[in-house]
């Protein structure tokens, strides 16, 4: 995917008083990369997602997804780029799980026998075998998002864009969904928009969008160690990392409290021992 000088303003916004939602944003994403997108609310993250899949059309600048222009060829782009939205409820269209997972395939005109196979596969891939005839309103938030994810995977896109997929979920749901998202790493190109820094610590790169501008395009480690960058963009480190930084420990590879404890023991020389 590539964006060059991407600029967009919402039609309802008065251009003389309201700054553009996206202002000359440029970046590239190579095939197979896992890229995080962070930034405060209203910073342009959701707008970017919608420009990438053709829901919105750029005012100026260039967008290319798999070589195609989403504004000119939205349906071709949508075959290759799937989006997982924030609200688990409003992404599910059909009265039953398997019908919903099939929705994308129906739109593509896939013949019925092939559909059945791919739907079954996708449902298994997200760990929901047995849920085929369940109705959406009986599912938990985590389960709903996994159904939505299955619906995307069934179409076998090269690129997955995740627009704050866990922000409306509880802790258990978040864990479930992240597990499956992280399993996708390496298989496809992933663009993961989120508020939660901890979700993209293992990304290849993170982009930071604030007030429509791309203010950073760095490796996660660089971001973590830059207190000013974090503060200016209203980004908050997870507790474990904050402790590590305050204690002067290296944040590299430090994710869980177990890692933190090990690092402390390493520093004090009681490195080996009961874990």
């Amino acid at each position, binding site marked *: 995917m590539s964006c060059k000088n991407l600029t967009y303003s919402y039609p309802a916004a008065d251009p003389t008083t309201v700054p553009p939602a996206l202002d000359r944003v440029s970046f590239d994403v190579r095939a197979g990369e896992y890229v995080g997108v962070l930034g405060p609310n209203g910073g342009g993250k959701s707008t970017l997602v919608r420009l990438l899949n053709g829901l919105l059309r750029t005012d100026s600048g260039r967008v290319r997804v798999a070589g195609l222009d989403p504004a000119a060829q939205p349906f071709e782009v949508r075959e290759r780029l799937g989006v997982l939205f924030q609200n688990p409820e409003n992404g599910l269209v059909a009265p039953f799980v398997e019908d919903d997972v099939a929705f994308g395939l129906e739109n593509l005109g896939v013949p019925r026998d092939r559909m059945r196979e791919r739907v079954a596969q996708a449902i298994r891939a997200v760990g929901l075998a047995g849920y085929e005839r369940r109705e959406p309103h009986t599912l938990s938030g985590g389960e709903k998002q996994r159904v939505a994810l299955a619906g995307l995977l069934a179409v076998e896109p090269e690129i997955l864009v995740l627009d704050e997929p866990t922000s*409306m979920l509880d802790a*258990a749901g978040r864990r479930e969904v992240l597990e499956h998202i992280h399993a996708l790493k390496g298989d496809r190109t992933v663009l993961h928009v989120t508020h939660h820094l901890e979700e993209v610590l293992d990304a290849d790169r993170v982009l930071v969008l604030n007030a429509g501008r791309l203010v950073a395009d760095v490796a996660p480690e660089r971001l973590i160690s830059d207190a000013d960058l974090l503060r200016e963009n*209203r980004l908050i480190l997870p*507790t474990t990392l904050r*402790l590590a930084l305050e204690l002067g420990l290296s944040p590299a590879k430090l994710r869980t409290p177990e890692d933190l404890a090990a690092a402390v*023991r390493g520093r*004090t020389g009681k490195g080996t021992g009961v874990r």
Partner: protein
Amino acid sequence: MRLELRDVRHVYALGTPFEVAALRGVSLGVEPGEILAIVGGTGSGKSTLIQHLNLLLEPTSGEVLVDGADARTLNRGELRRRVGLVFQFPEAALFAPTFAEDVAFAPRRMDLDEDEVESRVRDALRTLGAERLAQRSPFSLSGGERRRVAISGVLAMRPEVLVLDEPTAGLDPATREELLGVIRALRDGGGTVVFVSHELDEVAEVADRVCVLERGSIRASGKPAEVFYAEESAHAPATVRAALLLARCYPEVGRPVSFDETLATIRGVLEGSR
């Protein structure tokens, strides 16, 4: 104002084939001036529990006591004014043409004169940091701002106890911190706050007491350190998990719960080993 639930049971659809026991004998006290956190996931009965605090739901058996008196003998409207309940994603219930009018909804029902209503609306919005939004329409603006206004709507009743169901759900981390600050400020100002949360790190920062609800029963209850250190599970706040691991080699770590406490003791360990 002290609230108490004594052996409360609540069964939905009693006597029908769809019977469900949401609460199975819960006994819990809410002390004045504290922040009580109720920790429990989906299916634990937390929503059912908090609706008993202002008698939106009545117990199938057991009692709800307000300062020792049976809550059922009290005037419902009065009770709901004194115990203000904010549901999850409260911004879904905003309906008036401007935020100020929405916040005024509850105080207007309290037979106060217009000046009093206006002043309460202003105060409530100010507490939540949302006074500049007063004339805006609820149907625009971000989730975080609408959330603040929805909470102001309940605060405008000046309740003695504020009950919040997952107040930070769906918010970005910076706004969450701000909201937690508001909760602390309310308690520091003499109010009592009960909040339900599954975000253990937030509970660790803010709660005076913690109660763990699981499948309709209370599994543990007490001071945060007591509850979190007794839980032998991976579902404890990050600070506690780190401290537990370090305590095996360094008993002087003790039992910190909040970020600052944990930072201090670990720093002590690192410095002590030099």
